[in-house]
């Protein structure tokens, strides 16, 4: 089989598998988020924790619960990392400095998984599984909980209640993420991903060297790293490491896992608002961007423009032989369009346009399909903007799913859209203005600028991947990127939950002849244009200085 045909087939198989999961998984998540019944185990847990599982919260209470849970997660993880040298299974790793521990704690709590440390030399097994992997679960669940509250804002009328955060969190963790993780962790182990509690194991190679074989509970962490769109690798090489991703099948499976929940959530949305066509319109926009991005990155990598890539005769620098260009490009597109940030190949060595597209993907706000929950609420905010723009054109007060979009709603939507670009552009600007921080670049010229731009785009959008040549384990970068991750995660959540509260209070208005139908191809086109225009106008100057300058040079 030719590699081109194989490349097409793996993408088609992915589309097919995702399409098959769309209905059952989306409906199942809708069931979890709407059912009044608790499992007995859950009731026990609520009693233990001190939660009334039947009491719905007002949006400020829901928000306070999200923030309290996340703040304690950061503190707990920070403490665990700082104390790890005194704990079990620490493997003799050195103590991590305060700025790096802060960065790591914020990173995993915000679903970013930016790593300024190297997994195999900085983390013991206990912190990996009881600290980092736990946040992989719960941070993914927090995202889904927040979008659940937003959807309830559309479906509920004249109420100030948007759901119970503790119930949403528990159900998503225990009834969605946990069973899928157990199943697919075992599939990964069966293919060669390691799962043990060993430390490094030295042996003598045929070449006369000593090689240290690493161990660890890798499969159990690998699976939730993808499924929860987290992306923090057990090892420094992330999903390029053969112990995380041993063959072509596991690579495909990991791409599937990091997409499946976010691509199924529009179904959950359609189901909950009582009109599946609304879900289809949203998933169509997500799918359009994903297909276009995957195709363009694959094309750029096959072209392998660039002096080094031309000298090599192909874009294989930083890529694994067992994946090749097509599978690596598919992974790169998917990981940057979601908030995952896991990598099976190193984006810093991608062609200028291929690497530039991975930055562009994150700049879209990670909405196609985006992180678990965060992708859908990001897209719904843009849908609100699209409806508003259409309303301006015809001079009517716009409405979406029966809810009027007035000044209050549009203020929250606008604040949401302004947050991330402000963090990215101001952060990059400050870093470029400081000589000490500029020195962190590995590459020079336009490509070096792209490394800094990538870092702030990745942190502020909670992606976590990197143009990894840049040296970011410095007090300045650890602190600044930590702040970007925290603000980039929690400020948008504040606006989303405030919007949810505002929508839930409204009495729905009946659809009229002047209502813009939000399930037709016209709306799909309108929403896609809004996404492109908002991002294009915001980031074009920055992109022009980095990847575009390098690519046209």
């Amino acid at each position: 089989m030719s590699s081109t045909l194989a490349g097409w087939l793996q993408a088609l198989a992915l589309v097919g598998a995702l399409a098959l999961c769309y209905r059952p998984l989306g409906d199942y998540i809708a069931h979890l988020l709407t059912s009044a019944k608790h499992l007995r185990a859950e009731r026990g847990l609520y009693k233990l924790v001190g939660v009334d599982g039947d009491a719905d919260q007002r949006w400020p209470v829901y928000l306070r619960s999200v923030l309290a849970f996340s703040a304690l997660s950061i503190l707990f993880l920070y403490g665990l990392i700082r104390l790890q040298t005194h704990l079990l299974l620490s493997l003799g790793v050195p103590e991590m400095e305060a700025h790096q521990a802060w960065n790591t704690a914020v990173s995993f709590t915000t679903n970013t998984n930016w790593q300024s440390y190297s997994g195999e030399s900085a983390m013991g097994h206990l912190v990996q599984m009881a600290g980092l992997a736990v946040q992989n679960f719960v941070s993914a669940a927090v995202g889904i909980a927040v979008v659940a509250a937003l959807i309830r804002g559309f479906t509920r009328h004249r109420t100030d209640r948007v759901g119970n955060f503790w119930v949403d969190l528990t159900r998503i963790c225990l009834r969605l993420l946990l069973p899928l993780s157990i199943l697919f962790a075992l599939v990964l182990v069966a293919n060669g991903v390691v799962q043990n509690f060993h430390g490094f194991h030295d042996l003598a190679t045929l070449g006369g060297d000593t090689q240290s074989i690493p161990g660890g509970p890798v499969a159990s962490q690998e699976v939730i790293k993808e499924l929860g769109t987290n992306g923090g690798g057990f090892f420094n090489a992330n999903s390029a490491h053969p112990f995380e991703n041993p063959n072509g099948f596991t690579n495909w499976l990991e791409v599937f896992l990091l997409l499946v929940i976010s691509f199924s959530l529009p179904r959950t949305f359609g189901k909950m608002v009582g009109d599946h066509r609304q879900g289809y319109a949203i998933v169509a926009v997500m799918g359009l961007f994903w297909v276009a991005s995957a195709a363009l990155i694959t094309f750029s990598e096959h072209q392998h423009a660039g002096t080094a890539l031309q000298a090599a005769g192909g874009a294989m620098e930083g890529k694994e032989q067992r994946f090749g260009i097509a599978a690596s490009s598919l992974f790169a597109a998917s990981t940057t369009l979601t908030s995952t940030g896991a990598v099976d190949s190193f984006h810093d060595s991608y062609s200028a346009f291929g690497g530039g597209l991975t930055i562009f993907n994150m700049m879209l706000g990670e909405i196609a399909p985006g992180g678990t929950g965060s992708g859908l609420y990001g897209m719904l905010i843009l849908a609100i903007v699209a409806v508003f723009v259409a309303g301006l054109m015809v001079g009517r007060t716009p409405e979406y799913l029966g809810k009027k979009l007035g000044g209050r709603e549009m203020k929250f939507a606008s604040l949401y859209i302004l947050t991330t670009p402000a963090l990215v552009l101001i952060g990059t600007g400050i870093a470029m203005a400081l000589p000490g921080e500029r020195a962190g670049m590995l590459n020079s010229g336009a490509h070096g600028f792209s490394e800094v731009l990538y870092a702030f785009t990745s942190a502020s959008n909670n992606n976590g991947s990197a143009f990894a040549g840049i040296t970011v384990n410095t007090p300045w970068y650890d602190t600044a990127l930590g702040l970007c991750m925290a603000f980039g995660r929690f400020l948008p959540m504040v606006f989303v939950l405030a919007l949810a509260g505002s929508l839930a209070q409204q009495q729905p208005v009946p659809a009229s002849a002047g209502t813009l139908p939000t399930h037709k191809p016209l709306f799909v086109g309108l929403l896609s244009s809004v996404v492109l225009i908002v991002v294009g106008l915001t980031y074009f100057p920055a992109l022009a200085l980095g990847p575009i300058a390098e690519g046209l040079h």
Partner: protein
Amino acid sequence: MPTFLRTHLTALRMLLAMTVILGLAYPLLVTGISQVAFADKANGSIVKTDGKEIGSSLLGQNYNLPKKDPNNADEQAQPDPKFFQPRFSAGSYDPKASGASNLGPNDEKLTRTIQDRRAAIAAFDGVDPASVPVDAVTASGSGLDPHISVAYAKEQVSRVAKERGLSADTLNHLIDTYTEGRSLGFLGQDGVNVVLLNKAISEQK
């Protein structure tokens, strides 16, 4: 108790409960099942020759000649002609330092390095520099890539055959044996597992 404090206590209790379930019980369960059902793979797919562990079939290795002066840190390691050579590794195949070069597509140093590698490999294998395949002159993403392309393996046959006194047919046959095709026929890319191939040729009498 003020609401503020109560919310945080609830959050703390919830976090601890989740840590016990997802951070301890879950990995222990998966480890338990894996160690029973897939012990070999769960422990790193270790390969042995004559009962002695020599590596993992998933992690690539160096096959270099011993240094002339073991104390000279600047001495460049020279490839051992008796072995099939793997791809270049940014971390010298040390699993404690996995990762890539991260050099950009237009980086001058990378461009020069690739040109130098192409010339050195062509001389080492006695072939035309233009025919050296792309995987041979580039560093992998993990720095631990156990595979090379079939083309790069075939290129090395005559050198290894001469050094070991084995026939080219034997080596070509072994290359076929250790070529791992695409998963399910269409996922990923095919490659020759260098660890298993070198183990097999070292076991040839």
